[in-house]
């Protein structure tokens, strides 16, 4: 965006994001940083929700034959726990970082489509409420997070519970898709001069891969969900047993989405860790190219392994073998990452703030989950593991020990950038160690209970099965995790107000986002920097460190066109208006469109209740509202 003196056409308009505050400014913001913060808060709230669900689950399972919750409520708990953690916690936490960091890391003033960005957030926020609230009426989805047909269909799951799931997930998919188109465009097209693809920070790289996984995986679940919705609301036969429907169709479609989805969950965390480690090792990322390509490979292979979730369905030896071998292959690019991270630290000058501890925690813990993953990949052996707690152990090591650890690392690392203050290191250390011990205490025993025959998704189990000790350990560990989580919340909110002030570059990091003030002004960069290497900030502050890598200047014409200036640290405190930088208007319209979508889909619930006229009215009303708001959005100028 031009920082030229050309007077913006809207001079005098009073709706700059910088000029507003309060609730309205949050509802109408189109600033990627504010949207990132919104994502962060909302997702942390859902982390608490999903975590409390886990605490209930674990309390119920502490001992055999307990009856703290009913069977039906338990089924809702694990369904919602899985759904919440995957779709409302880890993906949005990643999205928080996409939003906040990508434009900063590539030297852009915003994302490609700021209003679409706001729209993504609002669809997520409203869709999340839609799927979460029913649990207070005991109406929450209860079909498991992969909702196998026909249990999720109208014949065997005729209540309202799964309605909320099929609709909620569909809506959340819209959010993820819209965001993905946005970030793909942003990363391809909004980079500062000189910021070539192979100079992008690793977090941006991994996010880039993730966006492609989203645009390729989500349409598949969209189709599968439409079938299920049509079955539930319009009487189609896709998964109806009596009509010859094949439950395996749902399973294949779900996992064609579901497996790439797990890499959607982990790659952003990998990216964050790849930022944290070099910074605190004072050494560049080892094997940058291999890191980027292995991310791409993981994403690509991720589309060819989905049926490893279905080894028990009897696909026949050929399919079993193909999917087994393909699955094992994913260990290779992932291994490259693990070893390259260690090599990054090796020979470095290591410092261990909390962020670094969490990053190292990810390496240590993800490896465990990865290895158990490879153990599942061998079907004859997986048949003894699938649908037991051994699987539960695997995916919590990769998800909690991997994704969540990486995200915590990211939060501690970027908190100073977002707020201008440090989080408390001592509280953070407590949280880290409680987390680390709690996580192992919770999930390691699950390997044992699983291999000793404990099925998953059971609300109770009998005494004398040899599982009591392990379950008790898991439950105790969960309470440690809860304490750790609450410590984190306390630290987070306290530090926001009272944390020690941090400068613009508190860690001595190599990438662009650290060249601007903390928190960054709404326009990010007063002057777009000209990037000449992978580590622009080190070029500036520790040139000896980057002496060994290639430097090159972008085209003069390009620099001129972008009004770019040589790399520098910014201290600019003037507003966008004073600087003459055109900023997008705040607008409520994306929110309204999102609201319209929710209303439109809610009509389906009314349809299920049986009130046809009201259902039509809701859907038509919601649809009209959506289209109207959309039209208003499209016809109003961006800036």
């Amino acid at each position: 965006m031009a920082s030229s003196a050309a007077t913006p056409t809207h001079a005098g308009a009073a709706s700059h994001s910088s000029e507003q505050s309060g609730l309205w400014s949050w509802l109408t913001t189109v600033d990627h940083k504010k949207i990132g913060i919104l994502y962060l808060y909302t997702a942390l709230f859902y982390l608490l929700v999903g975590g409390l669900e886990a605490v209930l689950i674990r309390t119920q399972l502490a001992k055999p034959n307990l009856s703290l919750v009913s069977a039906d409520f338990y089924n809702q708990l694990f369904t919602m726990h899985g759904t919440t953690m995957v779709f409302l916690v880890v993906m949005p936490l990643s999205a928080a970082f996409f939003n906040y960091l990508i434009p900063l890391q590539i030297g852009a003033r915003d994302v490609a489509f700021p209003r679409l960005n706001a729209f993504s957030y609002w669809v997520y926020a409203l869709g999340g409420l839609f799927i979460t609230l029913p649990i207070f009426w005991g109406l929450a989805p209860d079909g498991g997070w992969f909702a196998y047909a026909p249990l999720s269909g109208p014949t065997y799951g005729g209540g309202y519970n799964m309605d909320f799931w099929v609709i909620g997930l569909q809506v959340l998919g819209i959010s993820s898709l819209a965001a993905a188109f946005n970030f793909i465009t942003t990363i391809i097209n909004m980079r500062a001069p000189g910021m070539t693809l192979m100079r992008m920070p690793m977090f941006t790289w991994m996010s880039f891969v993730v966006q492609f996984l989203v645009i390729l995986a989500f349409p598949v679940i969209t189709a599968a969900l439409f079938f299920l919705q049509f079955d539930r609301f319009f009487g189609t036969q896709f998964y109806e047993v009596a009509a010859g429907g094949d439950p395996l169709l749902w399973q294949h479609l779900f996992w064609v989405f579901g497996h790439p989805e797990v890499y959607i969950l982990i790659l952003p965390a990998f990216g964050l860790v790849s930022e944290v480690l070099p910074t605190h090792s004072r050494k560049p990322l080892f094997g940058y190219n291999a890191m980027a390509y292995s991310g791409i490979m993981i994403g690509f292979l991720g589309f060819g392994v989905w049926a490893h979730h279905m080894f028990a369905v009897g696909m026949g030896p050929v399919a079993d073998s193909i999917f087994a071998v393909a699955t094992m292959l994913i260990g290779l690019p992932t291994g490259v990452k693990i070893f390259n991270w260690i090599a990054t630290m090796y020979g470095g000058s290591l410092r261990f703030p909390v962020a670094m501890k969490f990053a190292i925690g990810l390496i240590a813990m993800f490896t465990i989950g990865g290895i158990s993953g490879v153990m599942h990949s061998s079907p004859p052996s997986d048949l003894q593991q699938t649908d037991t707690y051994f699987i539960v152990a695997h995916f919590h090591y990769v998800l909690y020990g991997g994704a969540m650890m990486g995200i915590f690392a990211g939060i501690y690392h970027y908190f100073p950038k977002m707020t201008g203050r440090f989080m408390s290191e001592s509280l953070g250390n407590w949280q880290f160690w409680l987390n680390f011990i709690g996580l192992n205490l919770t999930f390691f025993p699950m390997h044992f209970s699983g291999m000793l025959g404990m099925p998953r998704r059971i609300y109770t189990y009998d005494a004398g099965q040899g599982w009591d000790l392990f379950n008790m350990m898991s439950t105790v560990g969960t309470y440690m995790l809860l304490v750790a989580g609450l410590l984190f919340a306390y630290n987070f909110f306290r530090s926001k107000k009272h944390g020690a002030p941090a400068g613009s570059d508190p860690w001595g990091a190599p990438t662009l986002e650290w060249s601007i003030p903390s928190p960054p002004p709404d326009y990010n960069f007063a002057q777009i920097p000209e990037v000449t290497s992978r580590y622009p900030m080190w070029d500036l502050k520790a040139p000896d460190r980057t002496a060994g890598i290639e430097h090159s200047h972008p085209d003069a014409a390009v620099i001129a066109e972008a009004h770019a200036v040589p790399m520098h640290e910014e201290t600019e405190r003037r507003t966008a208006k004073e600087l003459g930088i055109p900023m997008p208007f705040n607008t409520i319209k994306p929110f309204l469109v999102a609201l319209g979508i929710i209303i439109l889909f809610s009509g389906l619930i009314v349809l299920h209740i049986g009130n046809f006229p009201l259902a039509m009215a809701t859907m038509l009303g919601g649809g009209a509202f959506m289209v109207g708001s959309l039209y208003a959005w499209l016809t109003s100028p961006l800036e």
Partner: protein
Amino acid sequence: MTTATAAAGAHEAHEHTHYTTTGLDNRKIAIWAFIGSECMLFGSLISTYLVYKGRSVVGPFPHEAWTSPTGQVFKPILDIPVTSASTFVLLMSSLFMVLALAAVENKGKPGYEGTLGSSKLWLLATALAGAVFLGFQAYEFTSFVHEGLTIKTNLFGSSFFTLTGFHGTHVAVGVLWLMTLLFIDMKRGLGPKDTILVDICALYWHFVDVVWIVIFTLVYLIQ
């Protein structure tokens, strides 16, 4: 749904052209990413149709006649002549679409006076062709219902109507999009600087056409 959001993104118009890394317009990148994504959506829908082909427990069926347990006779459902006609119409609409784009892109250039340069005409023609296609589809759907095949009847009905219905919805969105362009063209005239607006619509439109090429072969012709 996704169409709407992508369209929304695609319309996120910057009034003045900004610097971009590739020199390309953001909207064009977004629409191609969107089309890539749509490949997976239609891939899933088509897969489902093919997987369920021949698995319906009751008729009517696409290519074979069927006698119900009560003795009622149903003829094969698919009507190739009618669909061939509508296929032809959709193919031609793609020609109109490129002509519309060329007319906008080259407005005022030599060779683009008169009919060839009339973007309004070609936009209208494209939209009309789309509408005719939709008309054919409406006719097809209603006649199937009369012949005893609804979306609820069997697996064939469910997967057929869903697949072609999704395609039809895409066409309908495209028609609305074209009409909007036509409206803008009539209001203020589209010129070379508006190429991107027509271009992204054209890409969408051709993609919808391409999907139909696949559907026509896989669903209608191959038995």
